[in-house]
């Protein structure tokens, strides 16, 4: 089958890849680039485990052809940390016990990252709504909501918020 060359900027690194028309963006990041953080949980766009940011917007990588992403900027979970320094959101997930089996975690982080870019201080209702396309079977969502809500704004009553002098912006 013929391949087509595309240019994909993934986590700020530009790649030129020869892809097949029926390769999805998920398959390309996982199989071609060994970025296995994005997961296939259902293959039909429902579970959210494959959520990535495409030009900043949350989309299902399993339902996006690689060809459709040609020329776009993609962010996967591997792009959230700055080398070994976790993003405040990632750290918040750890601190709040929002990670159990971890399979939904990358997708949750991507949806939440997109939310926090748009709404820096969402309330719990807004967090729940933004995460409603990400299915978790382990946590009941409670600590994930805590982690996202408190990432931007630590809560004084929360025993798991580690107030740091964060200085400026949060993503």
């Amino acid at each position, binding site marked *: 089958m013929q391949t087509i060359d595309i240019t994909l900027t993934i986590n700020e690194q530009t790649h030129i890849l020869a892809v*097949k028309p029926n390769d999805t963006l998920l398959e390309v990041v996982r199989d071609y680039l060994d970025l296995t953080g994005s997961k296939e949980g259902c293959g*039909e766009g429902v579970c959210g485990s494959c959520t990535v940011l495409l030009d900043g917007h949350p989309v299902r990588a399993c*339902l*996006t052809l690689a060809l459709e992403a040609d020329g776009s900027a993609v962010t996967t979970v591997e792009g959230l940390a700055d080398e070994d320094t976790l993003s405040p959101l990632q750290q918040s997930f750890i601190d709040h016990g929002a990670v159990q089996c971890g399979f939904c975690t990358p997708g949750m982080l991507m949806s939440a990252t997109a939310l926090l870019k748009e709404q820096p201080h969402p309330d719990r209702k807004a967090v729940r709504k*933004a995460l409603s396309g990400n299915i978790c079977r382990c946590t009941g969502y409670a600590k994930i909501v805590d982690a996202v809500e408190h990432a931007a704004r630590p809560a004084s009553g929360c025993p798991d918020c580690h107030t740091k002098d964060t200085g400026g912006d949060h993503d």
Partner: protein
Amino acid sequence: MRLPQFTYHSPDTLQGVLVLLDEYRDQAEVLAGGTDLLVRMKQRLALPEVLVSLKHLDTLSYIKEAPGMLCIGAKTPIIDVIRSDKVQQQAPALVQACERIGAVSIQHFRGTIGGNILQDNRCIHYNQSLLHRSGRQPCHKDGGKICYARDEADRCNSTCQSDGAAALTALDAHLVLNSIRGERREALDAFYTTDGIHPFDMQPDELLTQIDIPLVPGAVSAYERLSFRSAIDYPIVCAGVRLVPNPDDSGCIGSARIVVGAMGRSPLFLAQVSRSLAGVAFDDTAALEKAAKDAMNAAAAFAAHNAGAELAYRQAMVEKMVVRALTQAAARVFTRKAR
């Protein structure tokens, strides 16, 4: 799950798309957001040889006002419809419908309003994997002669579960379709064939380019839908209504459009029930409730076991969704007056 193989084109212009559709016709499918088509392809329900992508056709993404009309480009993302001031003010039923489509991270950024209308009809017996379907006779929509949603049925009983289509039908939307042969308009409620297998009155070389919502002075609209969960799910029943006040300012309904969705093979515009509301006062709760009951009786006949919920329940809920939509729309008349 691996997609089947196909050839991919992403023309830079509308004309480029139309030329390809003319060339490949039935062998081609248009790819917009892909959240419906690609799932069906993974299940081997759709096997187009060619995909014609609208990737470069951002010219089809817009929301603008024309005389007496709100014009929405077919490729407008769902999120843009939700966030549009114009649509919020002039056609709130559409905003309500779009907010309920799936989930934000599935359809709202990648999905398009055109794609939502043109999603294929669905049935719990049809939208299944090859493994599920292979051990029994294929159904009508799957190329066979049997219907699993309704016993003894000699035709397909799949249903249109599009939130956007139900709301837009209530809003009396018209579609603009283009091909190399030219452009044509069609009212949305005439656009459906009522054939579950090929639900749309659309030629294989045509592309949906624009959706027009007529702006009727004083009109109010609302949309209600029911599903087990508050996101992701398709509606198990939904209702869109548009009420136009009587121009004599009597506080009565001049004309109504009541549409029930996720029941029939197309959104069901209930003309007779709608007519019965002419002359009824907006605050005549009893009349609105009666209309909702009549809507339920009219729509119930179309129900089939094509969704994952009890049939009797879905039928009974038509009444609840219609009365809620009517009540909401009627309330909008008063809030508008109060301003």
